């Protein structure tokens, strides 16, 4: 019997991190590292793809990080893909296998996978957006038969910034996942598409009535990707996004992530487009 | 340190004088035992604070004046408010006078502890710094820091902080501590008697290097108390003048090699500071401080500048006792909120004089329509520099046989004994001819 991480938090203090250990880490790019994390004995994660954890380095602080692996592959550990941008994320990059970090969560609402079943999936991550989306992709691949056509359009600024390149190759080889890649600035060896992610959209055909689109990326990307998705006729309620906001608590108290009456950390970070469209501050 | 030795002569060119406030440059050259050159140059960047005071609203003057020096900023602030108050006919309340004195004692305590323990003491223990000393004699440094903290808190409670005090203003105080806070301080001051006694024991056992040179000394003199704020200018030769006549008494002029303005009284070098105050005002010391002087073997006839440190210890005892008395009085009477006393006129001329830790400090302003029109400041270290050089000239031939290293060490200790504050001195200028 294991207790869920969230339950241990609720029993003590939702602000008190649980000590987890870095099992291993793998450098993905210059800025991103993939951490494999192990919870203490008797504690399990039980998350949905799209949910996030508050990750602590004591003495430095805490940052919301999406869980990058799927529940279907948990096996006692889970993965976090972290980009080094500021204090906490840089501190995480100084740690080694065996070091401890603090975790709280999982928080928020992830992707409603059950609603996606039986549908075609159009996945459009940009940059670091692949980190949370990977959790969904793994889950979908592990239950592949429940889904229709699955297409992924993934863009990064430079080939060296593409995440999970080995997995991308594997996915492309599977045959049941259509992968299109693009970069803004190619290097010598790049033979693929060049341009922002929206330049990939003309390459794919979708059945708008039966397609769910999921897009995760930096704030500036959304407005352009949305234009493409809507142009393809995908209903607003079938377009899903994950929003980034400053978050200090993860549980709807600190106010940083509030847009309108919505607390992104609790009501999101995953939203359907129709639910956030009336919120002018959302996008 | 670039030092060359030829036979028994010394050539000292010490660019990096440490454990003093500000940058100094010491140059000594002897030839066949005679001094060819003996200079203490000021290498600190010029900061024209005097000139900057000009054109400022008088209420801002004390805050700017404070920035002349971080270690004696209560002194500069107090001299500045006194200059403005005298210029504009402001009489402050007795409570204000008490509070100012208390803050002043805080500064004297802080500065003397810093100097005696953290800058001078390492020399006596053969250590390069208080940090090194902390490794050898942790209890000595811990005691120093404990006392210094109390002194700093004394200033902070009254004025917000020690360096650049906040609430000391023309006409009074802009903020008052609660009586309970003062009572808390009082308890700590009383406790600090043990530390001051231990300090006395420590310094009583040290032997100060010998040097005797009769010199004139100047200090403020009051008949009612050991003067720190206001009074007359008194001279060891017996003269006594009202402070307004400071200019005639202290004649400032430029010495070509060093551009910190050296001062000459009657064209002879003179000394200001703790030893000068002690020599002039010893009769006004608190009995316990008199006892301390006796214990240290310090007499009003003292003519050894190394004994400045001993005089500081005596003042430490005096200021602690006076601070206790003052705090007790404030606690007994309770503190009253008072509004600042407003000036009765908008123009005038005033001289504010205080005894900063390093000696007599003058701020002299002409105020026109609430704006400072002219400002002149006389800084203790500038007054001492000529005397310090005279001491060195006498000392060097006597200790020449000891060799360059020892000569250098003794000279450094001598410079340090004066506790020169070159930040203050360079409110005017800088020269580094090297």
């Amino acid at each position: 019997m294991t207790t869920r991480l969230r339950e241990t938090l609720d029993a003590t203090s939702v602000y008190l991190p649980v000590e987890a250990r870095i099992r291993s880490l793998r450098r993905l790019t210059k800025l991103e590292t993939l951490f494999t994390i192990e919870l203490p004995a008797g504690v399990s994660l039980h998350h949905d793809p799209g949910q996030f954890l508050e990750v602590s380095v004591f003495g430095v602080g805490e940052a919301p990080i999406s869980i990058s692996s799927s529940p279907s592959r948990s096996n006692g550990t889970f993965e976090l893909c972290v980009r080094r941008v500021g204090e906490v994320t840089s501190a995480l990059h100084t740690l080694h296998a065996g070091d401890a970090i603090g975790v709280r969560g999982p928080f928020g609402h992830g992707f409603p996978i059950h609603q996606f079943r039986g549908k075609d999936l159009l996945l459009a991550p940009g940059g670091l957006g692949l980190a949370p989306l990977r959790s969904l992709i793994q889950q979908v691949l592990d239950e592949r038969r429940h889904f229709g056509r699955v297409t992924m359009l993934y863009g990064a600024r430079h080939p060296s910034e593409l995440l999970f390149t080995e997995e991308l190759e594997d996915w492309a080889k599977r045959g049941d996942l259509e992968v299109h890649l693009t970069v803004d600035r190619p290097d010598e060896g790049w033979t693929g598409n060049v341009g922002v992610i929206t330049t990939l959209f003309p390459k794919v055909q979708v059945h708008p009535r039966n397609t769910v689109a999921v897009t995760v990326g930096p704030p500036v990307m959304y407005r352009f990707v949305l234009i493409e998705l809507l142009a393809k006729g995908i209903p607003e309620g079938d377009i899903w996004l994950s929003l980034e906001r400053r978050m200090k608590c993860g549980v709807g108290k600190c106010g940083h992530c509030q847009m309108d009456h919505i607390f992104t950390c609790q009501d999101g970070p995953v939203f359907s487009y129709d639910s956030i469209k009336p919120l002018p501050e959302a996008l | 340190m670039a030092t060359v030795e030829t036979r028994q002569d010394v050539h000292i060119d010490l660019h990096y004088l440490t454990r003093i406030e500000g940058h100094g440059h010491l140059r000594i050259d002897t030839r066949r035992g005679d001094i060819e050159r003996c200079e203490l140059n000021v290498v600190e960047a010029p900061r024209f604070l005097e000139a900057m005071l000009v054109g400022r609203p008088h209420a801002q003057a004390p805050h700017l004046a404070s920035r002349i020096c971080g270690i004696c900023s209560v002194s500069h602030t107090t001299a500045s408010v006194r200059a403005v108050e005298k210029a504009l006919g402001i009489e402050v309340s007795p409570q204000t006078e008490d509070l100012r004195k208390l803050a002043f004692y805080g500064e004297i305590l802080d500065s003397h502890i810093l100097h005696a323990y953290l800058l001078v003491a390492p020399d006596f223990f053969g250590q390069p710094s208080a940090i090194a000393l902390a490794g050898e004699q942790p209890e000595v440094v811990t005691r120093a820091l404990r006392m210094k903290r109390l002194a700093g808190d004394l200033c902070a409670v009254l004025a917000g902080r020690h360096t650049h005090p906040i609430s000391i203003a023309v006409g009074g105080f802009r903020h008052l501590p609660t009586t309970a806070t003062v009572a808390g301080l009082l308890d700590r001051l009383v406790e600090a008697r043990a530390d001051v006694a231990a300090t006395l024991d420590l310094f009583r056992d040290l032997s100060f290097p010998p040097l005797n040179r009769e010199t004139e000394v100047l200090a403020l003199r009051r008949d009612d108390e050991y003067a720190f704020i206001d009074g007359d200018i008194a001279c060891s030769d017996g003269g006594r003048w009202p402070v307004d006549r400071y200019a005639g008494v202290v004649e400032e002029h430029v010495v070509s090699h060093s551009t910190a303005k050296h001062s000459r009284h009657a064209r002879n070098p003179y000394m200001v500071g703790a030893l000068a105050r002690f020599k002039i005002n010893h009769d006004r010391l608190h009995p316990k401080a008199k006892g301390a002087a006796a214990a240290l073997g310090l007499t009003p006839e003292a003519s050894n500048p190394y004994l400045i440190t001993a005089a500081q210890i005596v003042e430490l005892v005096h200021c602690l006792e006076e601070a206790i008395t003052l705090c007790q009085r404030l606690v007994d009477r309770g503190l009253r909120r008072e509004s600042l006393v407003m000036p009765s006129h908008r123009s005038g001329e005033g001289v504010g004089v205080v005894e900063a830790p390093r000696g007599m400090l003058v701020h002299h302003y002409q105020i026109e329509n609430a704006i400072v029109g002219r400002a002149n400041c006389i800084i203790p270290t500038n007054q001492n520099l000529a005397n310090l050089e005279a001491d060195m000239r006498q000392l060097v031939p006597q200790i020449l046989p000891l060799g360059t290293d020892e000569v250098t060490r003794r000279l450094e200790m001598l410079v340090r004994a004066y506790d020169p504050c070159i930040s203050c001195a360079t409110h005017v200028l800088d020269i580094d001819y090297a």
Partner: protein
Amino acid sequence: MGGHKASRPRVAFFDFASCEGCQLTVVDSLQRYPDLLEAVEIVQFREAMSERGEDYQVAFVEGSCTRPSDEARLLAVRKQAKYVVALGACAHIGGVNAGCHGKDPDELRRRVYGPAGDSIETGEARPIGSVIDVDAVIPGCPIDRDEFIRGVRCLLQGRLPRLPDTPVCYECKLRENECLIRHGQVCLGPITRAGCGALCPTYGTGCEACRGLVPDANQASLRTIFAEHGLATEASEAALELFLRRELAVQEV
């Protein structure tokens, strides 16, 4: 859990045109934080010690740059140090040295010193950031010792201290002070970077802006507020010049 503890960093202190109050505050900080001496190795601190090492990693620089010879010294410090930290207002924004009505240094020198002063090397007082790159700032005149210690702690953790981006009014409200502007005193709290705990207003005195402008400072609005409170006077102009002369000139450009 937590950042790895590196070996004790070697730290040096340097001073330029200043009152040395910030260095003194560093010494004072030992009163409350004696463990500072265990956390770092001070290899150079002329004001407090005779030992002198040149192999420092962190340089705390106090004072403003006024002379050509200062520039050479600053460049040497920059070359050696991994981190250069501006210590106090003089180094950060030029301090009161830079606030002197924009007076010509030559004229100032003559005024103080007469013709004999002509041989003295002077120049305009500038923040050290105008000569070398500065990694971090401990602002204030003088610095706040708690902030200094926090800064050291950040450096120990291998990161740079960040300054608060709230204005002094923010901390003033947290301390529940009555607003001085409403009581007819000039206060620059609304445009000044916080971090001092609104020390001056708490001690009944208008903020002098020694910590420099807060990002996005609304100077125009503050001037209007001064006018509405009858404070658009020589006193408020002098206050704005004391520490902010350089920064406001830049803001206007």
